[in-house]
């Protein structure tokens, strides 16, 4: 399943860390999926905070369908000021937070 914001964000640094620390391919894939899902939730939180109730319904109704992603992203660009900038910033924050967690201790 492809997440709606994957083509906008760049979170390669944490995936390199995962590559470095894990040997098993299945475990690496699992870790990357958990990280993707964590970032996705952070971005969903940001988007829902920015939209009114009806726009949230429109957004949530289409976000699961990959075919709807291009038109939904267009709508989000219309609805939210500096949409891509906010998404990239939030994704980077989420990534940094997880890198810090890995590095502490």
């Amino acid at each position, binding site marked *: 399943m492809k997440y709606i914001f994957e083509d906008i964000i760049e979170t390669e640094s944490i995936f390199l860390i995962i590559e470095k620390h894990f040997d098993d391919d299945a475990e690496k894939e699992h870790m990357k999926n958990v990280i993707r899902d*964590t970032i996705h939730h952070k971005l969903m939180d940001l988007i829902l905070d920015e939209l009114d109730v009806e726009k949230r319904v429109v957004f949530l109704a289409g976000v*699961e369908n990959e075919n709807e992603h291009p038109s939904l992203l267009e709508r989000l660009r219309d609805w939210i000021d500096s949409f891509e900038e906010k998404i990239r910033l939030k994704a980077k924050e989420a990534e940094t937070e997880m890198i810090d967690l890995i590095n502490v201790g």
Partner: protein
Amino acid sequence: MSSVEKSNSHQIRKKIEEHHKSVVDRFHEKHAETLKFAKKHSLAIAGAAILTAAALGVSHIYALEHTKHKQQQETASLQLFVKQLNSLITDRKTLNSAEEEVIADALSKKFGLNLKISLNENRLNEIFGYVGKEQHLYRWAGDALTSHDLQNAGMAPLQGAFKDFDDVDQEKYYVAVQLHELPNWNKDWSTLKPWYKYRKVLVFNPVNQKGIVAVIGDSGPAKFTGKTFGGSPEVMEYLQMKDGSQKGKAIILFVDDIQNKIALGPVDPTATYLANK
């Protein structure tokens, strides 16, 4: 990989998974109302898919399998519900109180609304009956047919029982119910009339499973017509209900919406009113 490195990767996995759980839990807690609202609409659009889980895109393979299984269960439940509902109401003139409660409960779950047969000790004589197609009603002084949609429906010569509407949507999505046939109407009309005025109801067409939130905007139709309810042109069009020899039956239930948060109109996110936003 050495045992130290292995231990380190175990620690990393634990930390990242715990963090993930915490982020997901916080998200669900914070947006519970929104997700519930969206789920209500998703039931209408997807026939029973659990939008929340899918929307969140839980990528873990077990979570995904669980979601798929849950969706299959929900779809099967909805199909069963439709079958049961149709068998319950087919060729029936009236429903008993137990059947009414079953239907109110099932439709509450289907649409995510709090639907009631009886509210504040008030209830309609029937919740299930034929629906006649009504004309538009004058909303306020100076109103004209040209300012309404679906103008072919025409305009009734008089205002509705409650006179002026508060807004455009109330007239657009109104139903008429037989208030004058209520057993206590003649005695208690002075208190009943304000209670019923623009009271929210769900109108449900069991044939196509469509539902729409409307208000009680008029009293009628007359008993001799054989119809129990009347529907505005927009209500009838959305529910795809006909009048005359092709007339169909609908279910009408009170919407318990004490905070006045439920919007009037189709309970379906694909409907034009949402898509145009």
